[in-house]
């Protein structure tokens, strides 16, 4: 924000305010307002009605009814979450699956981004295009395609059997391994793009200087390239980790019956139990559990950056 045109004048013009208002309005309408609706449902109770919870607020009923309804809200659902270890287990299992997948994505994505940043300038737009290309096909269809590749009589097993690498088809589909493959594949572009952006900006004269001073290339990579690309790594990892924790489609289609993830638990709560209040409570807790560590982490980063200066 500090670089905006309005900040140069001490008093903001009307236009300046309007400019700031747009992103805030966006955040309010598409993030805060829905969040409060979900939060409100999480304090309600299940009911056999349309919608299936109680109380519902109707502004037309007037102030007294509103106050009456507010009294009905309770934190009972949050208490329930602490009593059943299923939620804790699925949350932990989601964090582990997302963490492992993020690491794997980084291992696959770093060489790709590095290779792109080191390629001749003329190739880069094409390479960039190739990374973005999968987005042109529906995410769902791409995940479905992996079923065809990974299943027992699928392409991968057929290939390995023909090559004689294995004698029995591998069971990959419906296991956590398939979930890892699905997440790494689906989120790879989210890691490659920010990483590529930070690697591309890297000042090559630093590497030349290192070489001149007798530093072997691999050490130059560890001491110069990797630390300087850290912001890209962090941004990329967050972009993979955060959506992966709440992922539903990939564990549902590729995972097995024993793959426990918070997205699936939420689905069961919402659809099978038709318990909107508890599923809203799960969603609120999930949001808090994800947002708080990230905010703390960013604060830490900022402090470190200031110290360096």
């Amino acid at each position, binding site marked *: 924000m500090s670089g905006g045109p309005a900040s140069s004048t001490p008093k903001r013009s009307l236009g300046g305010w309007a400019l700031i208002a747009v992103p805030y309005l966006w955040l309010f309408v598409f993030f805060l307002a829905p969040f409060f609706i979900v939060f409100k449902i999480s304090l309600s109770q299940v009911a*056999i009605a*349309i*919608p299936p919870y109680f109380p519902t607020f109707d502004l037309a009923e007037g102030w007294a009814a509103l106050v009456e309804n507010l009294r009905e809200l309770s934190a009972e659902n949050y208490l329930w979450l602490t009593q059943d270890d299923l939620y804790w*287990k699925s949350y932990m299992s989601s964090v582990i699956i997302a963490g492992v997948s993020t690491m794997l994505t980084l291992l696959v994505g770093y060489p790709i981004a590095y290779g792109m940043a080191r390629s001749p300038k003329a190739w880069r737009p094409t390479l960039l295009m190739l990374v973005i290309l999968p987005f042109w096909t529906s995410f769902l269809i791409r995940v479905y395609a992996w079923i065809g590749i990974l299943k027992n009589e699928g392409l991968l097993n057929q290939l390995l059997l023909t090559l004689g690498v294995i004698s029995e088809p591998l069971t990959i589909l419906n296991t956590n391994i398939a979930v890892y493959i699905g997440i790494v594949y689906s989120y790879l572009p989210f890691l490659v793009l920010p990483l590529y952006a930070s690697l591309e900006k890297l000042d090559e004269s630093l590497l030349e200087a290192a070489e001149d001073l007798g530093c072997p290339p691999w050490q130059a990579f560890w001491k110069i390239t990797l630390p300087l690309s850290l912001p890209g790594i962090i941004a990329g990892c967050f972009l993979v980790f955060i959506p992966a924790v709440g992922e539903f489609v990939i564990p549902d289609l590729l995972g097995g019956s*024993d793959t426990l993830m918070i997205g699936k638990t939420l689905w069961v709560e919402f659809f*099978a139990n*038709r318990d909107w209040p508890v599923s809203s409570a799960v969603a609120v807790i999930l949001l808090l559990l994800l947002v708080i560590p990230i905010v703390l982490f960013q604060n830490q980063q900022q402090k470190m950056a200031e110290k360096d200066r």
Partner: protein
Amino acid sequence: MIKGLMAGAAAVGMMAGLAQAQDRTVNVYNWSDYIDESILEDFTKETGIKVVYDVFDSNEILETKLLAGGTGYDVVVPTGSFLSRQIQAGVFAKLDKSQLSNLDNMWADIEARVEKYDPGNEYSINYMWGTTGLGYNVDKVTAALGDGAPVDSWSLLFDTANLEKLQGCGIHVLDAPTELIPAALNYLGMDPDSKDAGDIEKAGELLKTIRPYIQKFHSSEYINALANGDICLAVGWSGDVLQARDRAAEADNNVTVAYSIPKEGALMWFDQMAIPADAPNMAEAHEFLNFIMRPEVMAKASNYVYYANGNEASKPFLNDDVIGDPAIYPTEESVKNLYTVTAYGPRVQRTVTRTWTAVKSGQ
């Protein structure tokens, strides 16, 4: 030139006329693979009402949409136990029976059984009914268990001695707790419709003992898996297993699939057509239901999907391999063994799904 213009104008006029005829629509939300689509074309041809047809594959999805309200659907097809809860929630409009002249065609026996969910049959008409039983690959099961394989008994699934021999060839189970827990209770000699938490736990324990042998819990994949010979045993819905049988026969791949209603009894379920209270096209919805209740139409649907229907007058129009197949139209003897279940209340429902999650995740 002028002639051309005139012809063009006439064509435009005709199209406008067509568009007007097409203005009337009915939005139908039904199970996937559950109708002969030529029925929809016939309906449009005859009435000029356009059918917007959309499909789902689980009662849970349908129910969540209905409870959120404003679905825009005019005709939906929930299963009995779900229907009864949805009626309670005020989802449906009462049928205007004066608009349903074909109601007389319906089968009184089925209507009587549906009373459990929809007292007086005020909100729904029966579309199809069926059973939840065992689908199996005849050759593979015989190879694993010999000629005396208990294919007519739930012990094929619930006795781990049998499962140990079968697990090598693959076992699928419906991902439907509201059908599997009653099946387990029934096998244990308890009331399949029990709402007691202790009973449900016992059913869960039985299901946990068979969990290690089960490859997958899924409600539609088993059709192809049975037909391709990828699995040898599935707990499935009657018509789906029979569709698998026919696909295998068509593919001529030496796979023989059979369906059995176990002698201990099986769940009998009813898929009911109903009209949401906020349906935008009430009149068209009634016209659609009335069309569906014609004997020839209902028979055409059953001949296509291999499920029995609740339309007595349709029986003469059914193919022999449908009406004559005890897996579709069970004999009176086996009908006696069929049981029905009612909806769970919210608290019990939670116990049921939690038990099911524990079974599936093997914890």
